[in-house]
């Protein structure tokens, strides 16, 4: 839902609403160029949502508030989260907006038993297959080898535990394959750590090994001890409840044949 707002003194503020992983946001900004880029970028995730969390872009410091619940700075772009809303300042381009949105999501998911993971997610037979690994491990290759419409994301997956079930959501944050991301979700079939190899093969992992796979690939930006304790609690739950595998991967579509159904 896109609509102009009252003139804030910096030009007309515009806003649109989006939902990522069922987390509702309302982005407000005066910069027409950034608005155009952002509304196009997040088009697949734009949605009229109930009770959105308002994010005000580049509105400057509100003299009425001083202490943020959470803050983060990335190359001059600053996120500050208050109980009354979120502020992004110093956002000059879509890249900075994308980055701060990821940081915000990672923080908001803590209270919703979820996390962001560097991983491609492909839906097959109604189940989400999560493929994770370092840059170059093959996330985008897996996406490129998968049928059109089955790629929830080729770069950053959002995982949440809902009613005792882990679900994977698409996100608008894309990788080399440039899959625009799909604003849908599916229950998780398993987490697969991509390892380049001469043959396709899977090996089941114990929970500790799954945790070892997850940790370096989780997007998390807080160094606060309590937030990290909560994250670790969520990741241990995920590692215990979701099956995980090493996937020796030859970078061809035949890898699907060795995956557990």
């Amino acid at each position, binding site marked *: 839902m896109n609509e102009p707002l009252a003139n804030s003194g910096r030009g007309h503020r515009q806003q649109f609403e989006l939902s990522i992983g069922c987390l509702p946001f309302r982005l407000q900004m005066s910069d027409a160029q950034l608005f155009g880029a952002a509304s196009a970028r997040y088009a697949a995730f734009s949605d009229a949502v109930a009770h959105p969390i308002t994010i005000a872009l580049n509105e400057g410091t509100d003299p009425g508030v001083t202490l943020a619940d959470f803050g983060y700075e990335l190359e001059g772009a600053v996120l500050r989260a208050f109980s009354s809303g979120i502020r992004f300042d110093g956002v000059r381009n879509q890249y900075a907006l994308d980055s701060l949105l990821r940081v915000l999501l990672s923080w908001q998911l803590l209270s919703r038993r979820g996390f962001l993971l560097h991983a491609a997610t492909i839906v097959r037979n109604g189940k989400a297959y999560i493929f994770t690994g370092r840059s170059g491990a093959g996330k985008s290759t897996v996406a490129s080898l998968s049928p059109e419409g089955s790629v929830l994301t080729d770069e950053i997956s959002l995982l949440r535990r809902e009613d005792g079930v882990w679900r994977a959501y698409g996100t608008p944050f894309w990788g080399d394959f440039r899959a625009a991301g799909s604003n849908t979700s599916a229950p998780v079939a398993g987490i697969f750590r991509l390892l380049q190899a001469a043959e396709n093969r899977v090996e089941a992992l*114990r929970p500790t090994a799954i*945790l070892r796979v997850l*940790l370096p690939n989780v997007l998390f930006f807080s160094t606060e001890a309590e937030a990290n304790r909560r994250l670790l609690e969520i990741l241990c739950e995920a590692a215990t409840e979701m099956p995980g595998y090493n996937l020796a991967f030859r970078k061809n579509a035949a890898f699907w044949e060795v995956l557990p159904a």
Partner: protein
Amino acid sequence: MSSPAPVFWQKNPALAWREIDDETVIISPNDSVMHELNDTGSFLWKNIDGNKSAAELAELLVQNYEVAPDVALSDTQSLLEEMSSRKLVLCVPATSGVAP
């Protein structure tokens, strides 16, 4: 030559840790490094509470595992030194039994 002042050991309060799959996983938020402790390491970790010395921790090890006291003390001191070098534990002056 006087003996060194007794110290108690405590967990670094800045860390996050959980037990999973009979192991203890410890995360250091500042550098996102993951540390893992095996069964006996996990036992010691659970008992590091800021009120026990290395000798007291070793004594607990002797009571719960089939290990000779001298080996338990040596292993406990080695683990504590290793964890201290990784900033997982801190030593604090022992105060119990000392008059103010």
